[in-house]
């Protein structure tokens, strides 16, 4: 069984900017995969190489075993891309937009599937509305629908929830999860790390055109050994604990600790200072911590 996505030693330069410097990546069929990294890390360039929108200077990329250059027709048929930019064609209605997109992929008489996609994305009532008249959130849904009209086995979503309200985000993830359960491979880039943590089984972190971490989400979280202690005290935080403070707010102090053994020590220190603990919470590291950790170390 070929990998859903296989990228080997891909380099890409735009003028002075080295956007990708030797990316190697393999995403298995059926995975829910996250592609994370700060702005300019090369996520969108990598997606562009996979989609044939950009051509790699070196290396190869395959989608479902089809080379994106030599066998571009099969590669593109296997891929659905939801672009990051909110783009649309102002000449057409929602239904026309979806019919055309289906036709470009050579899929005719696709009405039933188009109806189903529109229903799942809550677009049915807007089918005859011109694209220009839709709200930003609705346009985003149409972009998702456009990526799905030809039923691609691999779906890439480039920051699909940027600037989208909570309701749509929830609905969107429910639908994407269902597609993943039905066997579609999902590749997601997002700025919302909690989204990646909740959805992705495996994650690649990119920095300056390189993969700096590639592991299961659980393993990435395990790499971060520290934990956080959130405290609300009756008095001042004892001076000895001040160096451990990490992002405290007006109501609470947050201490960054190396491990569970430090918790005991911190509590003893507070007792000694005569402070009373009014509220206490122990927080496990999340993907954001792992992300910051990896970015700082790489």
């Amino acid at each position, binding site marked *: 069984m070929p990998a859903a996505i296989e990228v080997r030693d891909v380099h890409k330069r735009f003028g002075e900017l080295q956007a990708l410097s030797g990316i190697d990546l393999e995403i298995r069929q059926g995975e829910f995969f996250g592609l994370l990294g700060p702005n300019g890390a090369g996520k969108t360039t990598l997606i562009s190489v996979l989609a044939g929108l950009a051509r790699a200077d070196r290396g190869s990329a395959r989608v479902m075993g089809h080379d994106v250059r030599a066998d571009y027709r099969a590669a593109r048929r296997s891929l659905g891309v939801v*672009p990051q930019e909110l783009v649309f064609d102002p000449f057409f209605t929602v239904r026309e937009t979806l019919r055309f997109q289906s036709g*470009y992929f*050579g899929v005719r008489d696709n009405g039933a599937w188009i109806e189903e996609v529109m229903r799942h994305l809550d677009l049915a009532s807007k089918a005859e509305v011109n694209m220009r008249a839709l709200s930003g959130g609705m346009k985003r849904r149409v972009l998702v629908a456009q990526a799905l009209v030809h039923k691609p086995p691999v779906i890439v979503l480039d920051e699909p929830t940027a600037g989208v309200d909570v309701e749509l985000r929830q609905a969107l993830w429910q639908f994407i999860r269902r597609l993943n359960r039905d066997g579609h491979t999902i590749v997601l880039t997002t700025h919302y790390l909690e989204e990646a943590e909740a959805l992705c089984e495996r994650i690649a972190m990119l920095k300056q055109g390189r993969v700096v971490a590639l592991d299961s989400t659980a393993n990435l979280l395990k790499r971060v050994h520290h934990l956080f202690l959130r405290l609300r005290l009756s008095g001042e935080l004892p001076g000895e604990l001040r160096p451990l403070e990490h992002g405290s707010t007006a109501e609470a102090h947050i201490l960054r600790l190396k491990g569970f053994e430090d918790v005991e020590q911190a509590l003893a220190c507070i007792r000694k200072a005569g402070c009373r603990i009014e509220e206490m919470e122990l927080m496990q590291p999340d993907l954001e911590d792992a992300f910051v950790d990896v970015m700082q170390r790489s």
Partner: protein
Amino acid sequence: MSGFPTLLYKEVLRFWKVSTQTIGAPVLTAVLFLFIFSHVMEGRIRIYDAVPYAAFLVPGLVMMSVLQNAFANSSSSLVQSKMTGNIIFVLLPPLAYWEFFAAYVLAAAARGMVVGAAVLLVTLPFVEIEFRRPLWIIAFAFSASAVLGSLGMIAGIWAEKIDQVAAFQNFFIMPLTFLSGVFYSIHSLPAFWQGISHFNPFFYMIDGFRYGFFGVSDVNPFRSLAVVTAFLGVVSAITLTMLKSGYRLRH
């Protein structure tokens, strides 16, 4: 199945949906040209001895509309798609570069010929025109509009802003059209400018097109068709090379 028929249909529907602007406006412009020029010039000039000026002018105006609208269709569609970013919708599907080319050029030719036919239809009640060699009329209308559709693609792919397309149109397409004999027979020009006109490929488009109406022309229509076909071959080859390389479309 290929995505070509859908892309062609989409490109045709695109201009059809805004036909007041894409068909109505150029027809009005051509009709104004006809009334003003024929009013001012009538009786002063006789061309090929027997053809009155207004009758001579009509095929020229029709061809001018064909050329300008074929160019406008492919160039504006591409540059708008590039600027708004929705070009991605036709770059992601498995369309071959020659399917892409064929769809845009044929849609441009369709717009050129629809506008041309409309101009002709509107002027018929006012000017008596013959249709001596209708096949030549169709052959030149199609080949000329395909040339301009292809030139429009070159401009649309090359341009990064709307004003660059306008510059291409105003400094290249317009002068070549106006100097090709839309309003006059090149026999009325001094010998030097007659010679220069023979280097303008647009001259052969209009001259051959006129032959279809009157059965007379400045140049043998077979020679004109050969020149126009060769020119179509050259601009198509340039456009196809640009598309194949991904120039300014795939980075």
